[in-house]
């Protein structure tokens, strides 16, 4: 059957019988069966927890993210004019720097920023094609690059600016939590983590299931005051941030 006709039939079939999407146990390319329904509560939600107390702003997570994701099956992430005066390119992860307080009591905070894999992602329902979706099995928000029409509406609908249009492929791209890595059984178990997490020299990036109360990420959020960005919009970001901590001075 013709591909597009298949897509139409599948979209309708899933919408009429949502119960059937329970068959989505294994990760697969067929996005119509693995997508979470709007407002659905998932049993598992993979996420990053970022410790602002130890991030030193080295950008290792940025470069390792770019390296892994530009080398994958989805095709390279665009780099336009890389050696020119005005270079630009697609990145899934950025490290920003903020300064709090007034001199001399200032504090420098390095702030890594990528898709937060919201539990109620506003970017997903606005997508007219269904290319953007949230995976039922682990809560990762993904874009099906073969279905995206590059209308940029999802980027407008993300308050965090987490999505970037790839100027060469003309499709929307975003952090995949290295979905092509974390389940890869050809990799040693300790490597089945997002590239940014593996690269961080200070251990500022934790990865795990925030729905599992005993996971490393859940404990960190609980014990160290993890918080979500822009809570005012009710997007319930899965990724959370650990605040800077005061360390008491010790006299020896």
């Amino acid at each position, binding site marked *: 059957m013709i591909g597009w006709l298949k*897509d*139409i039939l599948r*979209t309708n079939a899933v*919408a009429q019988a949502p119960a059937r999407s329970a068959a989505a146990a294994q990760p697969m390319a067929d996005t119509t069966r693995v997508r979470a329904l*709007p407002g659905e509560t998932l049993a598992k939600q993979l996420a990053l927890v970022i410790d*602002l107390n130890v991030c030193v702003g080295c950008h290792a997570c*940025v470069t390792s993210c770019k390296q892994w994701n530009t080398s994958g099956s989805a095709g390279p992430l665009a780099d336009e004019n890389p050696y020119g005066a*005005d*270079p*630009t*390119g697609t*990145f899934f992860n*950025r*490290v*920003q*720097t*903020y*300064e*709090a*307080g*007034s001199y001399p009591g200032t*504090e420098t*905070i390095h*702030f890594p*920023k990528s898709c937060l894999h919201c539990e109620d992602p*506003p970017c997903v*329902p*606005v*997508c*007219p*094609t*269904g290319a953007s979706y949230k995976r039922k099995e682990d809560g990762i928000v993904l874009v099906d690059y073969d*279905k*995206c*029409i*590059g*209308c*940029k*509406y999802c*980027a*407008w*609908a993300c*308050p*965090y*600016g987490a999505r*970037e*249009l790839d*100027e060469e*492929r*003309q*499709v929307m791209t975003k952090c995949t939590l290295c979905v092509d890595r974390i389940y890869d059984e050809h990799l040693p178990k300790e490597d089945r983590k997002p590239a940014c997490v593996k690269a961080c020299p200070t251990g500022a990036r934790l990865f795990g299931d925030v729905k599992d109360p005993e996971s490393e990420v859940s404990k960190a959020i609980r014990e160290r005051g993890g*918080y*979500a*960005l*822009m809570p*005012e*919009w009710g997007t319930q970001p899965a990724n959370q*941030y650990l*605040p*800077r901590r005061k360390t008491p001075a010790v006299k020896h």
Partner: protein
Amino acid sequence: MHPAFSILFFTTLAGSAQGLVVALALASLLGVPMAPGFLSKALLVALVLLLAGLGASFLHLGQKMRAWRAMLMWRTSWMSREVIILPAFIVLVGLWWLGERTGMAARFGAVVPVLAIIGSIVLWYCTAMIYACLRFIEEWAHPLTIVNFTLIGLASGLLLACALAALLGGGGDMIAANGTSALGLTIAAWVTRVVSLRRNAGIRHKSTLQSATGIQSPTLVQKSMGLSAGSFNTREFFHGASQAAVQNARLGFQLLAFAVPALLMVWGITSHDSWPWVLAVLVQAPGLIAERWVFFAQAKHPQNLYYQVVS
């Protein structure tokens, strides 16, 4: 937000065409006498505008060949709904035009004009909801967005109907029927647009740098946005024009889209000349584009909080 000309042209062209179709539908329902062949010629103008708008909307897409996929998610996406209603509306106007050309339209009586009015209103609603449903773009997330898209479309469409009636000759009754409503709607659209301009200028945004980063310090500044040059985030969400340019555009669109056309309409109604109507359309066209430009430029996306300082 960065105003994309594809969207500015699409929303203004389609909006005017919808208004024109409403004017023609009301005129045929109310039995306003029209010159022979006027209705089919005016419908053809609406069709051309709609197709030009559709073409402009395609220019916005990165992957044009996949555009049909945008019809699939009508359950959740206003954009998908618009993508379904727009071609349906174009087909309806096309059939009406064919019906007028072949003389078959009379057989269907009021059905086609009534459907055309409903289609226009639904399409305005879908187009405006694309913007109004984005809750954190607070300049857009308001019923005034829907009111303005509808009123500006109606006003420009009714004016276009009067201008076409004046141009094609023998349109005295059409102008008499539509002229005052066109004037009234233009003034109403001006009023509601100014109300939204004022509201938007006074918004205290819910998101702050503190809520965006979770760093609770009253003095917090960005020192680096993590890149040394531009990115999608710095291109798509900033208009890049100076404050003065935005101010000029605000003033300019109020003059070109509302004030001057309203004066010309008064002239047209009182003098029974044709040319003020045609001139009003020509003056209004760039004003409508400027109005949509300001609609985008005035919207402050919360992601901009993360992209304040290059380096």
